[in-house]
């Protein structure tokens, strides 16, 4: 069971306290109507599947309840870092 550092609680906690929430840094468009069907399809469905560093979102569901971002290596399953929502991509 992985340990995950919650950047809000500033605590290393077991994985069962957290919920995965998909790829990070995909902001919802401010004006979706200006998006073509293809652009909207990309926003909705198309996600990266890297071998290695992956930017992803987690929620400290059974803790502070906050969503945050993380960089995890998809090969080793090791977390490189976690950081608060709204902070620039690491």
């Amino acid at each position: 069971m992985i340990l995950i550092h919650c950047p809000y609680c500033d605590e290393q906690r077991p994985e069962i306290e957290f919920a995965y929430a998909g790829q990070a840094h995909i902001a919802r468009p401010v004006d979706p109507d200006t998006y073509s069907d293809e652009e909207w399809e990309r926003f909705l469905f198309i996600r990266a599947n890297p071998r290695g560093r992956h930017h992803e979102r987690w929620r400290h569901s059974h803790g502070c309840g906050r969503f945050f971002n993380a960089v995890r290596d998809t090969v080793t399953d090791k977390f490189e870092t976690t950081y608060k929502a709204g902070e620039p991509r690491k």
Partner: protein
Amino acid sequence: MSGYRLPAGGRIDRSKPVAFQFDGKRYQGFAGDTLASALLANGVSLFGRSFKYHRPRGLLAAGSEEPNALVSVHRGPGRFTPNLRATNVEIHDGLNASSQNRWPSLKTDFGAINDRLGMFFPAGFYNKTFMWPRSFWDRLYEPAIRKMAGLGDAPTEVDPDNYAATYAHCDLLIVGAGPAGLDAALEASGTGKRLILIDEQDEAGGGALADPALWPWLERSMKALSSAANVTILTRTTAFGYYHDNFVGAVQRLTDHLPANSEAPREKLWRIRAGEVLLAQGAIERPLVFDGNDTPGVMLSSAAKIFANRYGVAVGKSLALMAVHDSGWHDVFALKKAGVGIAAIIDARDVVDESLLAEAAALGVAVHLNHSVIGVKGRHQVASIEICANGNDVRRSIPCDALLMAGGWTPSVHLWSHSKGSLKWRDDLGAYVPDQPNENCRSIGACSGDWDFGTGAVYDVLPTPKDQARIKAFVDFQNDVTAKDINLAVREGFRSIEHIKRYTTNGMATDQGKTSNLNGLQIASTALAKAVPDIGLTTFRPPYTPQTFGALAGHAKGALFQATRTTNIDGWAEENGAIFELVAQWRRARYFPKFGEDMHAAVNRECVAVRNSVGIFDASTLGKIEVVGPDAAEFLNRMYTNPWKALEPGRCRYGLLLKEDGFITDDGVSARLAPDRFHLTTTTGGAARVLNMMEDYLQTEWPDLNVWLTSTTEQYAVIALQGPNARKLLEPLVEGIDLSAEAFPHMAIREGLICGIPTRLFRVSFTGELGFEINVPTAYGRALWERLMAEGADYGITPYGTETMHVLRAEKGFIIVGQDTDGTVTPYDAGLDWAVGKKKPDFVGRRSLARPDIIAVGRRQLVGLLTEDPKMVLEEGAQIVADPNQPVPMTMIGHVTSSYWSETLGRSIAMALVANGHAMLGETIYVPMPDGTHKAAISSMVFYDPQGARLHV
């Protein structure tokens, strides 16, 4: 092999005799014996029958690597454990064990015919032979094979034992309490670190337990560690898996070694998080591969030493040793000194250390260098061995009753590999050893390749002048894999060791190849003419040894398997005979049968009562979210399809929630209590999901909005009072709320008191009748319910359950998200266009409603169905076709989502998703079901009171 108890020695307590049974026969051992050592001491040599050929097998080892001596232990009804290693089973008074995979008895096993037919059972035999016809596989081949080839029987009764579980945290976890582990523990115990020391055996010591010279040191060490407050010692505990971030799973066996069954937990699962892990698991001796190496009495050299020195048992009266490693010589010297007869030492090497030869000479032990064992005589036990000079067909026979094998050592890198630490090959050891760690972990002692019992040579198969195709030289004893099988796999084109493993099943038995993996690798390496590191190593996965399901399940069984959520009113429902169903994790009353009623009779009665007078329903499980803040209306406006900003305080609105892909994910009626406060309701199953989704948008997309979301599902008990008499019943009980139609219209909320209890009173209806949903603080739920039941007696108030609720809502065409929708249904598909705010610039899912696939023709749309035969109730989930006479497979145009008998309408009603359904009103479709094809007409979904006259009264 004719083992016997040595007159002295061992760690057994000779003053405490222990009586036990094996295969129905009574034996006696001593406290401290394992089943293996006690049976050996009684002269037993035959312990089991092999998996495939049913060959007679004896003990190979003395520890958890034992592949042959698998036994079943019976501890009374339901307490049956198959496939235990006799070497790990501690005897106690009354122990009842039996051998496996034999019929009718261990000595006379009819399945042994397989051994005579061995030439017909090569690697991949089952895959090659039982291919045709397909139908024979399920009916004939598989049952027959399973009956013949097998391990112990699976238990058939519910396990009555209890199992405990705990979490533990430490700075240092040491796995293995042999000399290396104990040394490390002694060193660390002085530092004040929180330390856990684990060992799978009944006492700490590991290899030192078989070395009497180390016993004084062992006693001192254990005394020091036991008295250290920072040290936890767990014996009879197997660290079976090493997971991410130094998380180690271990099972502690608590009561199996005790004479009587108790209510105390049988085993305990430890989930240990360690700062650092030290692996000191030791090494496992390798068998040698030669013809007849599975005859009972052929065993690991180290095992014979353990049986003599630890248990005071000689494995035979005259022992021969086949060695390629110095350690075997030392074992034999120790055995000789303990009084065990030694027939000869045979070593395949032509040169060994002078000191070994000198000691052998001093002890009067005959030595044959540059020789190999090429055959074993004896079926149920060794009678003699045939040896031959290497490269020179000069054979001779040596009488003996046991043959020891010293094939070198395999470091136990299992846990290291679980942790994804890398391995490196060492030619000199013929083994993989730990290289780079992947966790904060070190490997010490023999499991790192570090030992002091000499050196050896590495052989794949011992040299023999015999025809390789005619010998039975076993590599994997438990799965009956021979050197020939591995060579065959290579000849048939298998190149990767992972494929060779699966084709031959080498290393795939319950022992997971502890004694066979390296020999299999060496043989494959020779056959492929490639160095071992170039053909790889199969992956070690947890568990290290098999563990019980009971230990892994722990408390999570029966009623504790999953939490059951109950409402404050649940107890009343139970006392009043409710039949329950689970909805998400909630236990909900499905219907309340009166004497003799089946579900349909009860539901019909409940439905009629609601339509004609008044029914009462526990709606407490509805998800509830309090949305508070100056931007609350703006937030809901962005989340839901409907407009929220203009909703006046005191009014309610049906809210429809989409995911960003445009599909319905939840719905519910919500009320505005104040300009900055909303009381949201969600579906029972959707509460947590909806709150998570709203938090997601609030925290990450619109953090500028000043809104707070709080789950209030469990803060309110909710009682729905539905029916034409609902108002009359409520009126005298309510204070501060004008219930008149003018003052309190449909879809409104008022706050006040009911029976003196503060309430949020909704005037809403999921039945189509005049109705109220009374929210009171949870603790008052049952009291209010009972009061309403008493006050409502005059109106024949009728409690109803979820089944009646479903019928009533279906009569009105109200959807259930998740039943009538399935994650592919848009508001338009569901006929809920009216709930979509056309003028709103944006809401979650809005853009997707314009996607090409969503606006395309031919989507499945929600409609009503009226069967031609009004008595026919369609099956939910049944498929719908346009033409019942088309050839199979038919083109399916939709399916039935909801279907009920409506007592009110005197006929069946159904809802269905049908392609282009909205344009097919009145058209006929067909529903093929097992009892025939049924004709139905597409209709409106609102079957009852389409004008809503009954609501607005």
